[in-house]
C-alpha cells in the first residue's frame, strides 16, 4: 500500500516535471524560430516568378486536387540527388491532379549558384516539367516553415484552402533511388487521393539549410 502511494507520488511528480519541461521547450521554440505549418494548417498561396518568366500561383491550377510544393535549389547536393526523382513525381502525379511546384528559397547574394539565371539554366539542362519558382525576397519559405532543401509540403485542395497533409523528405534513401525502402511522398499522395490516413505525416532528413 505504502509502495503504491510512493509510486503514484513519483509518477505525479514526473508528470509535473515533464509537463513543465515541455512547456519551457515549447516557449523556447516559439522565441527562437518561426513556427511554419503543421499538418492540417491551410497553406498560403503565392505569386512567384517562374523560370519561363510567367508568374505562377496555386490558384492557376483549376483542376488540381492538390500540390507537391517542393523547396529545392541548384546548389545543394541533396537537392541534386533528388532532381530526377522530383521529375518522376511530377510525371506520375500531374496526370492524377497533384502537380509538382518547385520553389527555390535561397538568397542568390548568399548563394550565387542559385541566381534566377542559374535556375533557368538548371531547369533547361534537367528538363524540368514543372514550374521552378524564385522566392524573391524570401517571403514564402518562412511561412511554410521550410528549413532545408529539398523539403516537401503536400497540400490538398479543399473548400477552405490548400491544407497541409505531409511535410518532409521524398523517400528514405537520398544516395540511391534503387535502395529506397519507403517512398514517403508517393505513399502520402496515394493515401491522400484514396482518402486514407497518411502515415507517416512528417519525416526528417538532412538537407542544405536555406540561406
Amino acid at each position, binding site marked *: 500500500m505504502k509502495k503504491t502511494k510512493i509510486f503514484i507520488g513519483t509518477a505525479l511528480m514526473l508528470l509535473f516535471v515533464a509537463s513543465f519541461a515541455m512547456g519551457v521547450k515549447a516557449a523556447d521554440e516559439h522565441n527562437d524560430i518561426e513556427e511554419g505549418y503543421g499538418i492540417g494548417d491551410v497553406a498560403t498561396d503565392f505569386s512567384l516568378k517562374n523560370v519561363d518568366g510567367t508568374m505562377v500561383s496555386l490558384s492557376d491550377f483549376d483542376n488540381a486536387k492538390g500540390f507537391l510544393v517542393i523547396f529545392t535549389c541548384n546548389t545543394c547536393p541533396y537537392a541534386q540527388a533528388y532532381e530526377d526523382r522530383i521529375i518522376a513525381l511530377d510525371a506520375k502525379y500531374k496526370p492524377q491532379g497533384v502537380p509538382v511546384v518547385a520553389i527555390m528559397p535561397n538568397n542568390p547574394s548568399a548563394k550565387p549558384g542559385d541566381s534566377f539565371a542559374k535556375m533557368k539554366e538548371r531547369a533547361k539542362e534537367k528538363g524540368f516539367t514543372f514550374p521552378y519558382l524564385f522566392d524573391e525576397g524570401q517571403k514564402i519559405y518562412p511561412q511554410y516553415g521550410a528549413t532545408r532543401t529539398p523539403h516537401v509540403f503536400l497540400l490538398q485542395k479543399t473548400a477552405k484552402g490548400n491544407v497541409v497533409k505531409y511535410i518532409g523528405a521524398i523517400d528514405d534513401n537520398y544516395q540511391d533511388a534503387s535502395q529506397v525502402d519507403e517512398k514517403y511522398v508517393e505513399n502520402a499522395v496515394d493515401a491522400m487521393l484514396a482518402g486514407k490516413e497518411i502515415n507517416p505525416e512528417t519525416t*526528417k532528413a538532412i538537407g542544405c539549410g536555406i540561406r
Partner: protein
Amino acid sequence: MNKLFVLGLLTILFVSCTGKAKKDGEVLETTEKEEVALETDENSDVKFPVYDFDGLEPMLHKEDGKTYIINFWATWCQPCIEEMPYFEKVYAEQKDNNVEVILVNLDMPNMWKTRLEPYVEKKGIQSTVVILDDPKQNDWIPKVSEEWGGGIPATLVYNKDKRSFYERSFTYDELTEELDKFIKNNSL
C-alpha cells in the same frame, strides 16, 4: 619429310600460341573487371572511420567523465565550414581539460576522397573526424535529438550529467559559453 615435320611442329606451336593468347585475353578481361570493381570501391582506403548510426551511437552516450562536443557537418555546408575554426580552437584550448571534439561528417560517399580528405588535410584539422554514412535519416535524426529537424550545422554537447542539442551555428564566444556550463557542472 623433315620439312613436313617442322611445318607440323610450327603449326602446333602456332595453334597453341593463339590458344594461349586467347586464354591470356580472358585473364586480362577478368583483371579489368576486378579493377573496375576496385574503382567503384575507391573509398575503401578513406582516411576516416565510416559508421552507420548503430556504429556511431556509442560515441553519443559515453559516461567516462569527459565532455563531448559532437558537431554534425559537411564540406558543402557553408555555415559548417565557417564555424569549424571555433571548434578547432576550443579543442586546442580544452583538450587537456577532459573535452573531446568529434566532427561527424555527412558528405556523400563520392566526396570523401575528392572533398573531405583534402579539406581536413589543408586545414590541418586536429579534432577527431568520423564519417556517418547512413541514408535512413528519418530513423537516426530523432535518436540524436528529438529537437533536430535535420539542418546542419548541428551540435550535441554532453557529459555524464548533462546534454544539450543545438541546431544552429556557433561563434567562438557562444561555443565557449555553452561549454562552460558543462565544465563547471562537471567539477561540482
